[in-house]
């Protein structure tokens, strides 16, 4: 971890914007909310991490070769076009974009998934994809997209 969560908070407060948004650390938050329920000052740390990730993506300054934002973006795209996630296809896309060698080291897991009938190759999709796409795009001209609220 480049920066501890405390350091992230301190950097945000001191306006070290670039350092924070380029940090890999914000992407390491797995969103388990343990810190949020423990914090005696009721700071919603998980949500702050989300806000920083969103901002990093919006400004295009997230760590480019780091698998976690790549997964987030691939997930986002699949939901946009299909309405649902097909996990095995998502993971394959992640491997191809982030680390194709992972395919080689995970082949046994892939075979296990086929054996147990959990390897899905056909895209899950919703019927009313046009409706969903229209809803998601309705937010495009929202002014919040141009000036997202400050993270902290």
């Amino acid at each position, binding site marked *: 971890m480049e920066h501890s969560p405390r350091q992230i908070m301190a950097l945000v407060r001191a306006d070290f914007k670039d350092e924070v948004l380029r940090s890999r650390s914000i*992407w*390491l938050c*797995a*969103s*388990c*909310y*343990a810190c*949020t*329920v423990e914090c005696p000052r009721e700071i*919603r740390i*998980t949500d702050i991490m*989300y*806000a920083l*990730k*969103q901002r990093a*993506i*919006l400004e295009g300054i997230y760590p480019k070769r780091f*698998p*976690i*934002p*790549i*997964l*987030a*973006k691939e*997930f*986002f795209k699949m*939901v946009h076009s299909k*309405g*649902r*996630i*097909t*996990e*095995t296809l998502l*993971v394959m896309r*992640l491997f191809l974009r*982030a680390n194709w060698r992972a395919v080689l*080291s995970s082949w*046994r*897991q892939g075979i*296990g*998934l086929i054996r*147990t*009938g*959990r390897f*899905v190759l056909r895209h*899950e999709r*919703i*019927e*009313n994809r046009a*409706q*969903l796409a*229209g*809803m*998601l795009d*309705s*937010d495009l001209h*929202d002014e*919040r*997209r141009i000036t997202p*609220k400050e993270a902290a």
Partner: protein
Amino acid sequence: MKYAYFPGCSLKGLGRAYEESLLPVMEKLGVELVELNDWNCCGATAYMSVDETKACILAARNLAIAEKTGSRDLVTPCSACYLVLNKTKHYLKDSPEIRGSVQRALEGAGLRYSGEMPVRHPLDILVHDVGLDVIREKVVRPLTGLKVAPYYGCQVVRPYATFDDAWNPTTMDRLLATLGAEVVPYPLKTKCCGGSLTGTLPDTGLRLTYILLKEAVRRGADVIATICPLCQFNLDAYHDQLTRQWGPVPIPTVYFTQLMGLAFGLPESQLGLRRNFVRMKPLPALPARA
């Protein structure tokens, strides 16, 4: 009892054994789950990392479809879905900006959502609506002698502990005890399994997974019971890598609904137990009746 049902993507994919066991168990108890028509992905943690407002719109479409069914409650078994749908409800209530964007999106699509419909987990339904007494009556094959570590994971109890305690949840403990199982103390019951980090950053994610498995073995458990498809996958599907890196932790992880199915005497073949990488051993023989 009738509920609207949001399965989520995992229950149609990697976590299909969860749905395969949930549906017959609920049917046995007279609970009807009506799957939402044309539901979409909840967005999980990944979508929220990209765009907050869109994440709420995505979830709100499901909430609106659920409300249209006229059911009292929406039930969702996946922890990520449970959290995202509840979180969206909170955001719609607390943030006028998000409420405005979501309402515009819904209206444009001819949908509406009042914000009232409760989003609940099957564990909550089973323990609080059906009741442990009714469940006990259905047990024909008590899980006597089976030592189970109850693992709740994070997002069902945090940050919104609506039906159980955020630090020490006990609903599943009580449910498993009702089935006759021996519930072993498992202090890591709400620790994170690593979530999607097991796939993106295995060195970081799998360490969390390993700690959970190791502790369950150390506590003498035969099996880990889980309530989340991602937890199940992480605890079940990486044993090769875990063994290579830190040594074997040979313990199966199954859905709590699969254990219920076994206790209800449902055929093992119908409960999705064959979908596990680490298979559960046949139940221990019942002690002879005196």
